[in-house]
């Protein structure tokens, strides 16, 4: 039980770190990060910079911002289960 609480706590912390990293790369973006299973997250980003970009380019902006959290041998983020990029 204790372990589960700790895992939840750190998931919330990681989610906040993800949010900050995206905000730094895309200032003014509306960002929601929802923790799923351990190391798994769903992200929703609404930002004006997405305007006129294809889906891949939009997602690359977000993935590029959080690349550091996804790389290495034991990264805090294992997988982004869902990434929605929305033009406001």
């Amino acid at each position, binding site marked *: 039980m204790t372990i589960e609480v700790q895992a939840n706590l750190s998931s919330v912390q990681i989610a906040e770190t993800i949010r900050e990293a995206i905000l730094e790369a895309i200032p003014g973006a509306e960002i929601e990060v929802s923790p799923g299973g351990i190391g798994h997250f769903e992200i929703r980003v609404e930002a004006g910079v997405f305007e006129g970009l294809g*889906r*891949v380019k939009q997602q*690359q*902006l977000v*993935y590029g911002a959080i*690349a*550091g959290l996804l790389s*290495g041998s034991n990264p805090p*983020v294992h*997988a982004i289960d869902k990434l929605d990029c929305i033009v406001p």
Partner: protein
Amino acid sequence: MTSLEDPIREKLDQLVQSHSVLLFMKGNRQAPQCGFSARVISILDNYLDDYATVDVLSDGEVREGIKLYSSWPTIPQLYVNGEFIGGCDIITEMADGGELFGTFGVERTPSIVPEIHIGDDTAEALLQASAQNGGPDQYLHLSVSKDWQTSLSVAARSAMDVEVQSNGVTLMVDPFSTDRANGITIELVETAEGRGFKVDNPNAPTLGEMSVQELKTLLESGDDFEFIDVRTPSEFETARIDGAVLFDETEYARLSALPKQTKIVFICHHGPRGVNAGQQFTDQGFTNLHNVTGGIDAWSLTVDPEIPRY
């Protein structure tokens, strides 16, 4: 590490520039090591005979580097003419939407509506299975892959699908499967593991027969082929034809990894064991398989009496 070091960036630049279609994946085209890579390979195989792959599992630097290089966190990753196209989900969507023809510059040929035979009992069981596994907007899909593996699944309809009606059952067939699926019969069978569907496909390649004279000509031609002796090691010791390789588990694994059009000739003592061995490879989708009629005994009798009979 969040920035890419120059030597790795240059290496990746060079890789993506040197191939018109390049897939970063886990494993290789013959043996993908993850389901996502396998799915993209099965899609690419529909469009292209030749393309390049890089196995990220064999190079940790590339494995981590490509994620930063592409700003994309997952493998597989597809590059076409130096441009990042997407990962598994995006490739799948592009395939479903018919976009990949443009991406690869491949002309879309019109699909035929395949004829599919389904008996009454089978139709009922198919309808039942699809009702149990899917909701509204879910359809039974039939596909026959390039290596002749048939699969039935329940999924949403894609814009590319060809609709087939047979005995009250609606089937969706992807445009790459239509020719290969034409004329097949789906049959409900009872097996030890329970009820299942068996597919009889008249288009699928079968094990060809080869006479000992044809084998002699082939051996003398110097053409490249795999010559596999499926008898026991002691029989092999007693009598064998030069060039034949004894079949064992290692050989099985080696042959299984070869391109599906590889010519493989099986030989045994009289013929039946060669048929069994060949069957293992027709099942895998190999298309150029032959069994020597009459086996090595026929060879001793009609081609080379020097080879002892036993």
